[in-house]
C-alpha cells in the first residue's frame, strides 16, 4: 500500500496517469453502449451540482438545502436561451451567471444569520421556486415544462447523440472539477476550512466569516447553474418537478454518501445519485423507496465518512491485520471530515492542509 502511494506521489507517474484517464474518457463513449453513455452523462450532471454543494457544505460547513433550486434555475435559463436562439456560449454563461447572482443576493442576506437559520433560508428556495416556475409560464412553460433541444450531434461529427452529449458534459464537468480543486486547495479553500471549524478563530486571523460564506454560497450557486445547463443538455426538458424540494435532500444525501469535503467524493456522489435509482429499479420497482433507504443507511453505518473513505478504511484494516501492535504512524492524508473542536486541533487541521499544498507544489 505504501509503495502505491509513493508511486502516485511521483509527479511524472501522476501526469501519465492523468493522461491515460483523459484518453480513456475521450475514447470511452465511442465504444460504450448508448445506455452507458447516457448514464455517465447524468452522473456528470449531478456531480457538478454536488460539487457546488460540497464547496458550501463540505468545505465551508454551511447547511444548504436549496441547491436544486440553482440547478433548476440554470436549466430554465438555458432552456429560455436555447428557445430564443442565443449563441450556445452565451447560454452557458447566462446559465451560470444568473443563478450566481441570485445565489449572491440570497447569501448576502442569509449569511448574516447564523447556523441553522441559513438552512431555513435555503429550504425556502425550492419551495418558492416550484410555484414560481408554474406561475411564470411565459418564461418557464408553466407546469407542463419546456423542451429545448440543442445537444443533438451535428452531422459533421458523425457521432451519435449520446456521444455528443457525453463530450459536452465531459468538457464542462472536467473544467468544473479542475476549478473547484484549485479553489479548495488555495487561499480560499483554507479560509473555507477555518470558517467551518471556528468563525471566531477565522475572524481573529483576519478572515471575514461573512464574506467567506457569501463567496462559498455564490460559488455553489454558479456550479448549480452549470449543472442546470448540463441537465438541459442531457434531459433536453425541464419542468417545475425538476426543482422539487425532495431532490435537494437527495443531493445532500448523495454528497454525504460520496464524502463531504472531498472533490472525488462529489464525483462518487453523482454516481450514487444516478446509479441507486437504477439499481433499486432492477431489484424491484415497487420497493425503490425502501431499498434506497436501506442502501443509504448501510453506507452511512459502514462508511460514515462517505464512499471516498473506502480505500482508507481498507488500508487501515489491512494494516491492522499485518501489524496489529503498530499505531497508525501519520494522520490520514486526505481526511475529508474531521471535527476538531479545540483551537489546537484547528491549527493542526490547517497545517495538514498547508502541508498538503506544499506537497503539491
Amino acid at each position, binding site marked *: 500500500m505504501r509503495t502505491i502511494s509513493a508511486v502516485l506521489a511521483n509527479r511524472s*507517474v501522476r501526469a501519465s496517469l492523468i493522461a491515460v484517464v483523459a484518453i480513456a474518457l475521450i475514447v470511452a463513449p465511442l465504444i460504450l453502449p448508448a445506455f452507458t453513455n447516457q448514464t455517465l452523462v447524468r452522473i456528470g450532471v449531478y456531480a457538478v451540482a454536488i460539487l457546488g454543494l460540497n464547496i458550501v457544505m463540505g468545505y465551508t460547513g454551511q447547511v444548504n438545502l436549496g441547491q436544486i433550486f440553482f440547478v433548476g434555475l440554470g436549466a430554465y435559463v438555458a432552456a429560455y436561451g436555447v428557445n430564443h436562439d442565443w449563441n450556445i456560449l452565451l447560454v452557458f454563461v447566462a446559465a451560470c451567471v444568473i443563478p450566481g447572482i441570485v445565489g449572491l443576493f440570497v447569501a448576502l442576506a442569509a449569511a448574516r444569520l447564523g447556523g441553522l437559520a441559513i438552512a431555513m433560508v435555503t429550504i425556502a428556495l425550492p419551495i418558492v421556486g416550484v410555484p414560481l416556475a408554474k406561475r411564470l409560464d411565459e418564461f418557464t412553460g408553466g407546469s407542463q415544462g419546456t423542451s429545448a433541444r440543442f445537444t443533438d450531434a451535428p452531422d459533421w461529427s458523425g457521432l451519435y447523440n449520446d456521444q455528443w452529449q457525453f463530450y459536452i458534459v465531459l468538457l464542462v464537468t472536467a473544467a468544473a472539477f479542475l476549478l473547484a480543486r484549485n479553489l479548495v486547495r488555495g487561499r480560499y479553500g483554507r479560509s473555507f476550512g477555518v470558517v467551518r471549524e471556528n468563525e471566531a478563530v477565522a475572524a481573529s486571523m483576519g478572515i471575514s466569516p461573512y464574506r467567506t460564506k457569501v463567496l462559498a454560497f455564490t460559488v455553489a450557486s454558479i456550479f448549480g447553474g452549470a449543472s442546470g445547463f448540463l441537465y438541459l443538455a442531457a434531459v433536453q426538458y425541464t419542468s417545475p*418537478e425538476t426543482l422539487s424540494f425532495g431532490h435537494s435532500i437527495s443531493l445532500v444525501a448523495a454528497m454525504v454518501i460520496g464524502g463531504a469535503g472531498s472533490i472525488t467524493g462529489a464525483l462518487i456522489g453523482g454516481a450514487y445519485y444516478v446509479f441507486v435509482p437504477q439499481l433499486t429499479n432492477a431489484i424491484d*420497482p*415497487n420497493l*425503490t423507496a425502501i431499498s434506497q433507504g436501506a442502501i443509504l443507511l448501510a453506507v452511512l453505518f459502514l462508511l460514515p465518512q462517505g464512499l471516498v473513505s473506502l480505500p482508507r478504511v481498507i488500508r487501515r484494516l489491512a494494516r491492522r491485520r499485518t501489524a496489529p501492535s503498530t499505531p497508525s504512524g501519520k494522520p490520514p492524508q486526505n481526511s475529508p471530515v474531521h471535527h476538531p473542536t479545540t483551537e489546537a486541533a484547528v491549527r493542526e487541521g490547517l497545517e495538514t492542509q498547508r502541508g498538503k499544498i506544499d506537497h503539491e507544489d
Partner: protein
Amino acid sequence: MKIRNKPGGVLGIVAAASIVALSLSGCVRDGAGQGGGGSSTSPGITDTSITLGVTTPLSGPTAGPGTCTVAGLAAYFGAVNAAGGVQFGDGKKRTVDVKSYDDAYDPQKSLSNFQQMVADNVFAVTSGLGTPTNRAFRDAAISQEVPQVLVMTGDPLFSDREESPWQLGFVPIYQNEGAAFGKLLAESGAQHKVAILSQNDDYGKGYVSGFKEAIGGAANVSVVGELTYEATDTSVDAQLTQLAASGADVFFNAMSITPLVISSLQKAQQIGWKPSWFLPSNTSSPTAILQPGGATAYPGIYSVSFSKAPQSPAFAKDADVVKFLADLKQYGNYPDMPAFPHCMWSYMVGATLEEAFKKMTEPNRDSFMTALRDIKGLQAPLMLEGTAVDTTTDGQPAVSSVLVQKYDGRGYTTAEKFG
C-alpha cells in the same frame, strides 16, 4: 523509495495509451437499438412474445395512482397470457410481458428509465402516469422511433399527430371534462349562476376553457364569480367565502389537490353555502375525498367518468367488474378495491393494445402505430355505455368521450340531466 524513474517512462505510457485508444476507436459501435422503422422486426418482439415498458411513479406522493397504472395493465395481460396470449395480425400468437420502472414523478428519472428500456429491448412504452415525466422523454422517443402510447396525461400535446408522431394520450384532455359538464348545465334549461375556482396553471385553465366554451351560447348559465388559487396553497377559505357571497347555485371547482378538495367541501358547509359541485375526475374519489368531505350535505356532486366504478353498488355484479377485480387480485398484485381510477384505465389500455396487436400485420413499430391509430368504436371492458375508444381523430386522445356522473352517497351513477 524503491522506484526507478526511468526517463521516457511518461512518454512510454502515453504512447501505449494512445495505441490502445486508437485501436479501441477502430471498434465502431453497432447501431442496434437505434430506430424501429422499416419492414424488419423491431426490438422487443419475437415470434412468441412482446415486451411493453411502463415508467410511472411507484414511490413518492403519486405512488398510489402510479401503482394502479401498472396493476391494471399487468392484470389484463396476465389473464390474456394465461389464456395463451394474443393472436397477432401476422398470424403468430404471442404472450405480452410488462416491465415496470419507478420514476418517482421525476422527469430526469423517467428519461433514464426510457433509456434503460431501449437498452432492455422494450417494444413500446405505455400507460405511464404524469405530464412532466412523459414530456421528459417525448423527444427521445420520437428520435428513436419508439412508441410512447396510451399514456395517462391530460396534456393535448401527446395527441397532436404532427408534433407527436410516436405518441398517443389515453385519458380525456382537461378540456373534454370541463366541456362535458358545461354541456349538461346548458341543456338543463333552468337558470344557473356558476362560481368558478380553478388552479392557477394549465390544469385549471384547461378545465375552465372547456367549460366556458360549452356554456358559450347558453342564455341560462351565467358565471357570477371566478377566482384562482395556487397549487401550493394550503387553504382556499378566503376564496370560498368570497364565492359564497356571489350566491351561486353551481360551483365549478377545478382543483387537483386531494386535501384541499376535502377541506373545501367541509368549509363551504360551515359557512352555509350549499351549491351543486363539479369536481375533476382525478379528485372525486368517493372513498378518499367525498366521504371525508361530507359531500352528502350538497344537492349534488358531479364529476365525469368513462369507466365503471367497481366500488359503486350499481356495478357490484357487473360481469366486467367481477372479472377485473379477480384479474387485479390474481395477476396485478393488487388485492384491494382500487382507490384510484387509474387501475381501471390501465386495464382498458391493455384492451386497446390487444386490439392494436390483433390488427398489426408486421412485427414492427411502424405497423403497430398504424394499427393503433385505426381503432374506432372499441368498447373496452369497464367502459361506460356511451363511451368508446376512438384513436382515429387527430388532436384527441384515445378516449375523448366522457359522461357526467352524479354522486349517489356511495359511488357514481351516470347523470342524464342536471338536477
